[in-house]
């Protein structure tokens, strides 16, 4: 399993448009990715391609989230998602 950390850059947090952009990108990846708030148990991680899961996660601007994938070859995929999280989509 590999993981990446990212800080949510969008001012409204990870909902609305930023969540839609992120979920869509995660859904297009060939690997399954989960997302959780930093410090929460790994088994509470949620499907990163679900906009409803992302909304219920309630990640605010500045929160750190952890992305995980069981696929060890998913480095590039996770990096692409980190870039999306660290961009302010409301700007």
């Amino acid at each position, binding site marked *: 399993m590999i993981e990446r950390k990212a800080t949510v850059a969008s001012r409204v947090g990870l909902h*609305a448009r930023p969540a839609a952009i992120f979920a869509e990108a995660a859904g297009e990846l060939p690997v399954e990715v989960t997302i959780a708030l930093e410090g929460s148990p790994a088994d509470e991680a949620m*499907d990163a391609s*679900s906009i409803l899961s992302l909304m219920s996660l309630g990640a605010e601007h500045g929160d750190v989230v952890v992305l995980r994938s069981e696929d060890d070859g998913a480095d590039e995929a996770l990096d692409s998602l980190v870039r999306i999280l660290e961009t302010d989509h409301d700007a």
Partner: protein
Amino acid sequence: MNTFTGVGVSPGRVIGPVRQMPRPVAEPPAGEKWSSTTVDEETARLKAAAKSVQAELRKRGDSATGDARAVLEATAMMAADPMLLKSSNTLIVAGISAERAVWEAGAQVADMLRGLGGYMAERTQDVLDVRSRIVAELRGLPAPGIPAADRPFVLAAEDLAPADTATLDPEVVLALITSSGGPQSHTAILARALGLPAVVAARGVDEIKDGTEVFVDGAAGTVLTGPGDVERTASAIWAEQARSLGAYNGTCTTSDGHRVPLLANVGGGSDARKAAEAGAEGVGLLRTEFCFLDRDTEPTVAEQSAAYREVFDAFPHGKVVVRTLDAGADKPLPFLTDATEPNPALGVRGYRTELVTPGVVDRQLKAIAEASDGATTDIWVMAPMISTAEEARRFAESCAAAGLQTPGVMVEVPSAALTARTILQRVDFVSIGTNDLTQYVMAADRQLGPLAALNDPWQPAVLQLIRSTVAGAGAARSEAGPDGADAGRKSVGVCGEAAADPALAVVLVGLGVDSLSMSSRALAAVAAVIGSVSTAEARELAERALAAPTALEARAAVRAGLPILETLGL
């Protein structure tokens, strides 16, 4: 040829094909089982339906712009959301039908979002909308909501809800016809705001087949199937007149030169700018609660001040009447209203919220005062739902403490109309809200279709109360002497939908009402009709209306004296 008769609530004559508003999607029965041959077949059915709803929403998103597009895109993603499908599939595996499974899974998600509060809670409706769409798709029924269509149509429904109105595009909807609802229903208010012809409470129109061509006469209150040459000519004449009536030059006078200021009812800055473009002399009713609907916390003084300033800036040389928050009944604000009241219309609403949530009014007055700093607008402030002179006195004191010069109150409760003299000893002006005044004096809920005939501002009791208010203002004015009557103060305005009915507007002028406030769309028609009569003729028509024993006879008597209405098709 079939004729359906209802109540005309917004004038205009048009011909077009009917499209029925689909009925709300009914809840699939609890415990409903699937009848597919295998679990996989049932989960595949759900997936196909979800994908198809998603594709439809995407398509609509592609043709939308701005916020509407963002909302549709996010909603499209919810439709085939992995979490929603996974929870549904768990239920399908247990034998539950796809329809019931997605219904329950959607409810769970909605509850969770509601629990998160704030922005997430506001998305609850989107999830429930997606759920209904998927169920409709599974059942092979049309999707809920206003139908999408390539060519303009007449929208028929039982009644429209405020939520439907957000998606109503006046470019494709020609007219509104409903089997329920009254003259003050949301359908009626929306139709007047958009300038669409509308007939409400016309029984049977929700049964007309899709595609049937109908003639709608929003002044006469009739809907006709299979229109002929007479109706085609009438609708062509209306189209021509609507174009020429479109312009209002910004000044309304009777034929003998008596000025009647025409103001606009607005809900915020963008409305106010439109009203200014349409020629309104100012704002007769700023519905401040419309700046803050969907908020679950009280807006800060700075936020409020910025919202009000936008409105003031639209009328640098005009008047703006700011109404303090009118929460309650059909316009709940979570931070002010108690949703569990048994009789919300008779409950803690309008100025009465000060009894249970003191301080909100003072903070709002502070925000208005801050917004007025440096503005050249003539700013008046009024409180809604005032019943006594004592409440008027308390409000005037609060205004004075905030440094606001011109306090007033709404006349919506019959007691205020009957005691206008003592109320106007304490405040500078009153504004009659005819919608609520009618519902209260007739004891008839304004949302109820069967009571539409009672909910008519032409009712003799309503006209008597307006006369009583004007008489009270006259008495207060002469008591106040030359100083107190300064700049036309102790004045009486009307800001209800009645002011937008050109015939009734003439009666109001005849009764001695000083100014009229309405949706911007109605300005041109009202000015044209008022301009066709002298002050003496308006008084004579008002007497005819007051003498009539019924609302129908009052309307007929006045309309008979205003031949211009027929000429203009109003």
